[in-house]
């Protein structure tokens, strides 16, 4: 048995075993002597879904000295092997474990938090499982596939007192001073807002292709209805398809609708009506909020706000007084997550806010698919007076998966 053992925060928490009266030699690294982060301040993480975007987030998190990545998971062998190589290189060892099943990571006692970079159809199940196992969660946008999933995720995060950070760096990052100026009523009260993003998701008609050796297709599909393999789906091309994602509406929509709602201050609410274009009077998909605010899909190349005293962008007007962007702890969105974990406070893109933003995207999709106006109750989170439309609030999952909340 080794004469030295690292004393970690987890060791103390486990109780008696860590307090046995034996001569412990505590390596300096555990106390941060070599410039590293003391063990007690480390956030040990696992990365689940390490394809394109996921591996980017994984790398970004590893850039924080507090974060120690020790496990990666992906049903695509090439993704997880590449991710392991990156983690091992960063940690200067070969200890990063590789998995195809996320439950092998969420069930580990030595992991504090997970990064979820899987396709959208997995986000809810993995988030809820992580919460139930006491893990904090950073989850890429769009954080949900359905409105029902979003509320389920909120419940799990709150029930288990977890920190959840959603992956929308663009809410603040892309728009410079815009959110502050809107919040600060630089152009008065916002009456209309135009949001650019791609269109609704659709059914998938990709042909069947031979399954590469070692790829766990059943696990990639998970809760989504079964279909044969196609390489586009595992290479980031799942986004247009309804079974896995919400198309452009949730891709850039999660960023831009989220940003608009945050800037205007309706980020904890929802619309009461959604009207798709009808080829006649309604030219743009329109969300109507209780206070009369209208938010449109399209009509701009990015984001445009129309206030009582002017438009943004397009005006030099500045906020009236200091404007605090509540909940943002700095260091970028990943850093905000890290700080929130350390301080045990809600992240800037907390799950409730992520859920409200993606709800708007999902409602837009439903209106586009069904080609009819919808009335929505943002408190009960139901489509009102249209039972068949309301069936799209959530979806039963492929066996044996289900939402456990």
């Amino acid at each position: 048995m080794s004469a030295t053992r690292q004393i970690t925060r987890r060791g103390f928490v486990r109780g008696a075993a860590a307090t046995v009266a034996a001569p412990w030699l505590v390596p300096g690294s555990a106390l941060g002597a070599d410039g590293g982060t003391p063990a007690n301040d480390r956030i040990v993480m696992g990365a689940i879904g390490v394809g394109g975007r996921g591996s980017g987030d994984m790398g970004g998190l590893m850039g924080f000295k507090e974060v120690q990545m020790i496990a990666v998971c992906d049903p695509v062998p090439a993704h997880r092997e590449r991710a392991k190589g990156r983690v091992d290189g960063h940690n200067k060892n070969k200890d990063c474990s590789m998995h195809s099943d996320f439950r092998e990571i969420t069930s580990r006692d030595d992991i504090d938090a997970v990064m979820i970079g899987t396709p959208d159809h997995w986000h809810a199940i993995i988030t809820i499982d992580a919460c139930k196992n006491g893990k904090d969660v950073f989850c890429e946008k769009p954080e949900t596939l359905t409105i029902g999933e979003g509320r389920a995720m909120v419940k799990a995060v709150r029930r288990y007192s977890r920190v959840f950070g959603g992956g929308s760096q663009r809410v603040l990052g892309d728009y410079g001073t815009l959110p502050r100026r809107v919040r600060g009523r630089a152009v008065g009260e916002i009456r209309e807002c135009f949001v650019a993003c791609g269109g609704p998701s659709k059914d998938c008609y990709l042909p069947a292709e031979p399954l590469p050796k070692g790829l766990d297709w059943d696990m990639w599909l998970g809760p989504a209805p079964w279909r044969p393999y196609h390489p586009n789906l595992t290479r980031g091309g799942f986004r247009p398809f309804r079974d896995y994602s919400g198309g452009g509406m949730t891709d850039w929509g999660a960023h831009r609708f989220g940003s608009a709602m945050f800037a205007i201050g309706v980020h904890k609410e929802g619309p009461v009506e959604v009207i798709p274009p009808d080829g006649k009077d309604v030219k743009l998909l329109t969300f109507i909020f209780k206070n009369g605010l209208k938010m449109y899909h399209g009509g701009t190349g990015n984001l445009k706000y129309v206030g009582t005293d002017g438009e943004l962008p397009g005006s030099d007007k500045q906020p009236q007084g200091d404007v605090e962007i509540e909940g943002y702890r700095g260091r970028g969105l990943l850093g905000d997550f890290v700080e929130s974990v350390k301080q045990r406070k809600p992240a800037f893109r907390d799950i409730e806010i992520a859920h409200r933003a993606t709800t708007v995207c999902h409602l837009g999709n439903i209106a586009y698919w069904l080609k009819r106006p919808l009335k929505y109750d943002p408190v009960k989170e139901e489509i009102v007076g249209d039972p068949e439309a309301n069936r799209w609030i959530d979806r039963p999952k492929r066996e044996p998966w289900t939402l456990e909340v």
Partner: protein
Amino acid sequence: MKHGTMILAAVSVVLLSAVIAAAQDAPINKEQFEKQLGEWLPGMGKEKIPERRDSQQKLQEVCFKVGAPGREKDRAVVCEVLAEALGTDMPGPTRIWLLKQLQYTGRDECVDAVAKSLGDKDDHVRDAARRALANIPVKRANDALLDRLSASQGKFRVGLINALGYRADPASVGPIAKLLGDKDQATAAAAANALGKIANADATKALGAALPKAPKALKGPFADAYLRCADKMLKEGKTKDAAAIYNQLSGDGYPKAVRLAALQGKLNAARGKNK
């Protein structure tokens, strides 16, 4: 003259589009729809997936339209025809597509046909039928799932339990509760989860009785479901009953995350808050 011809052509296109649109919004004639469906069906199950698009999307468009408020008669006609079609010999992909439409548009008229598909030899068809019944908002859909429960096993049984949990019908509590002691742990965990979703008094009682006897591996899922029952009680103002469950789950023998959640629940109960 050329300019006039162009205007005439444009007006004709507009008028023709309006006629087509009006035809699509016209009441559905059952015989005509049966004939139309008969033309679409062969395309829906083509071996090459891209070749299924045209006919599948045309059917879906009709289903989306007749699902609108005020078109109940049309909806019922369309779904009756789809249900009848399900009873005929057709490839798996075609069946799955019809079941998908019924998942979002079907009601009482299609339950028997969908339920029969629970016994299909193709497990993808069975799964599509199960998901359809999970989402068809009539009592008979719940009954159809329950009817299959005792004879089923393995992953399919777990799927049936999940579907019943999705529906959260109190009538399911009795049959599901019997599975809390199942030797297959996946079945038992699914049963606990489903009861945690229903979370009525009977479900809470069943979970409370099963929890002490649960094996170590199932303590977490059972406790989580029981926690959800407590959360629901707290929301309904049954603070004392909720607090009793939180108290129990904050003690030894439960996973750390459950104990923390129970502690949070105790605090919420003490403050008179609900989640």
